């Protein structure tokens, strides 16, 4: 497989995953805006969406103030914003075109159609009235592409690079969402058990589509420590850090098997993985949740870089 093609497949799935996650974050911001009364609080939530997606500065450079419709339009369709859903889907599709021969027809058509549908939907500013439809289309299309990959691709190196891209991105996204909101999970004398806490926790779980699953597992009770354990260490939840790392590991093992050997990236992955697996949620809180997450994000980034150089993504 060409190094350039591996690079294309890897970034194609990263962009798709990030576009989907951006859609989820907008959904949460919108949901809160509907449920929280004061304008200041609404703006605060939208600001936190901007911070989580890493777009606060870019947004404020283009717009003087924060308002819901302006924020979600910026995140959905602003062409100048390379991190808007539209820009990212375009990047995903451009990468797909570049690696067209590594993809099955079904995967290519799913991605091409996704881009065509959302390009049309996002050709005009999105109003609150049709935001729900846009966000649900993003989720549905993401599922369709995933399904096409799952159902039609050979389980070879191409698939491995695609999956590694997905899970590196997802691990990074979950960690960032947690990091922006980590303080709501810390023990606090003043707010424990208040309804505001419950809303904050619920929001956090919603951002990673984990609210229902968490309720199932915990019989409806909310507990910040359990939430953190769930999002970081629960290997059953497909957006937890441990789950993402397990997937990265199995796909990296696939590469090692096909290529008959491991690389630097495998070693880095092992180090980071054992750090994650060997710790308990108590230890994480003791040594600092924020520090733990920063370290995790940095390590994940480095693993991505190592993969890119070990497998000659760029000449």
């Amino acid at each position, binding site marked *: *497989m*060409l190094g*350039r093609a591996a690079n294309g497949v890897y970034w194609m799935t990263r962009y798709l995953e990030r576009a989907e996650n951006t859609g989820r974050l907008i959904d949460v911001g919108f949901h809160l805006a509907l449920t929280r009364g004061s304008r200041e609080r609404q703006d605060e939530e939208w600001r936190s969406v901007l911070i989580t997606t890493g777009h606060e500065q870019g947004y404020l450079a283009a717009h003087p103030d924060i308002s819901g419709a302006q924020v979600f339009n910026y995140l959905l369709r602003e062409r100048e914003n390379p991190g808007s859903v539209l820009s990212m889907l375009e990047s995903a599709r451009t990468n797909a*075109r570049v690696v067209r*021969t590594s993809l099955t027809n079904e995967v290519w058509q799913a991605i091409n159609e996704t881009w065509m549908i959302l390009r049309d939907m996002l050709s005009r500013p999105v109003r609150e009235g049709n935001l729900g439809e846009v966000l649900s289309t993003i989720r549905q299309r993401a599922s369709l592409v995933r399904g096409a990959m799952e159902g039609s691709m050979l389980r070879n190196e191409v698939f491995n690079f695609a999956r590694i891209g997905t899970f590196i991105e997802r691990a990074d996204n979950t960690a960032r969402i947690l990091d922006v909101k980590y303080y709501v999970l810390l023990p606090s004398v003043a707010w424990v058990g208040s309804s505001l806490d419950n809303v904050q926790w619920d929001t956090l779980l919603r951002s990673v589509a984990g609210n229902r699953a968490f309720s199932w597992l915990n019989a409806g009770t909310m507990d910040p420590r359990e939430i953190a354990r769930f999002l970081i260490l629960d290997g059953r939840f497909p957006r937890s850090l441990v789950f993402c790392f397990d997937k990265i590991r199995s796909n990296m093992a696939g*590469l090692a098997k096909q290529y008959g050997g491991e690389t630097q990236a495998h070693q880095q992955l092992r180090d980071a993985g054992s750090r994650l697996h060997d710790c308990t949620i108590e230890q994480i809180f003791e040594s600092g949740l924020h520090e733990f997450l920063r370290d995790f994000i940095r390590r994940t980034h480095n693993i991505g870089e190592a993969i890119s150089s070990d497998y000659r993504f760029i*000449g």
Partner: protein
Amino acid sequence: MSSASGSRYDEMLDEDGTIRAAYADFRDWYDGQDISWLKRQDAEAERFFRRIGITFNVYGEDAGEERLIPFDMIPRIITAREWRKLTRGIEQRVRAINAFLQDLYHRQEIVKAGRLPVHFLRDNEAFLTQMIGFTPPGGVYTHIVGIDLVRTGPDEFMVLEDNARTPSGVSYMLENRETMMAMFPELFTKIPVRPVSDYPRRLRRSLQASAPACAGSRPSVAVLTPGIYNSAYFEHAYLADQMGAELVEGSDLRVSNGRVQMRTTEGFQPVDVIYRRVDDNYLDPLSFQPDSVLGVAGIMDVYRAGGVTIANAPGTGIADDKAIYSFMPDIVEFYTGEKPILQNVPTWRCSEPDSLKYVLDNLSELVVKEVHGSGGYGMLIGPTSSKKEIAAFAAKLRARPANYIAQPTLSLSTVPIFTKSGLAPRHVDLRPFVLVSPNGIDITPGGLTRVALKKGSLVVNSSQGGGTKDSWVLDE
């Protein structure tokens, strides 16, 4: 109707309006269909093409702009008898082209025999001195050829142009058929149409058979593309995918250890055969255009040392040059010892004073083309041009006569297209695709029919608003 030479030939209807035998079964079927259903299918076809991404980029427009070549769903039908004659003519012509190239880059017997003035080579950018004295692996110069044919009567097929560099359009031939089979499967159970779908396999076999001696028993093949902004990128990706070959860009390749190697996730691996869709000029910055980033530095040295096959060979453009075209009847005769089976369109070389005078005097009836142009750009179609346009063109012609050739305005045959108000005749041409390998010449039954969608128009180029049709060759 812009016709200089009498009445046009319609491939479906004869002079009395009776349906010709080739179209009889099709018309039976067509007349039994509900028109509103056909209209729906017509609209569906466009969505289908968009979804699978069969698009081309138009130069000069936004980099991201992708257009569809319009597809017309009425097939162009060729009988078995017509096709037999065509294939004999095409084979003869392609054999002659390869012999001509071999001769030009070696002894130049044709020049010595006084059949081709030497200045046609000397002043021609398409003639590559880097190829002199070198024979490509297997002696094949043009692995892939597209011969553009026009028809003016029942038995009159003429060659309008030979495409011996990197002919494009074969992906449309394949996808048009796929689309027709998906939209109207029952047609193919009623009418015996010869299949085209094994073209990619044949292409791969043909390329592998042309591999250099250093290749192993399963030679590796790669398609070299300029990248996603090239107008034919879809086709490059499509062919690589269908052949199971790597799709590479210049930046994926480098020369080391006397081979061309591609950068894979496991390190560098040699490529045996490169089906390049990059022009000669950009192929090797060391040998040709120094600032090219589309090619591979040093590939020409590897090529000349027998370390790689380049398809088509560099320097084949000299054979499809429009000035050389006018010599093709002589060329065919010189190398095959036979009379040409397919005729040329009469051509005036404006470099010759007598011809120039004739052309200037008769501009309003002629088609004038740039010698090195393609894609329908920079040409004059006399009968459909205004006096002002003709005067402006005459000035250009006088300034650089050697840059132009002229031909009579041909009355191209017509084939019906599907319009809102039913079937309507439009002018067409045909580009059959030919594969050449040391094992022989292989012609896919059919090809790409291009159709001028505007009533009366003779320009079929997709860059000028032309469309395409599925082309059927009927089985015996």
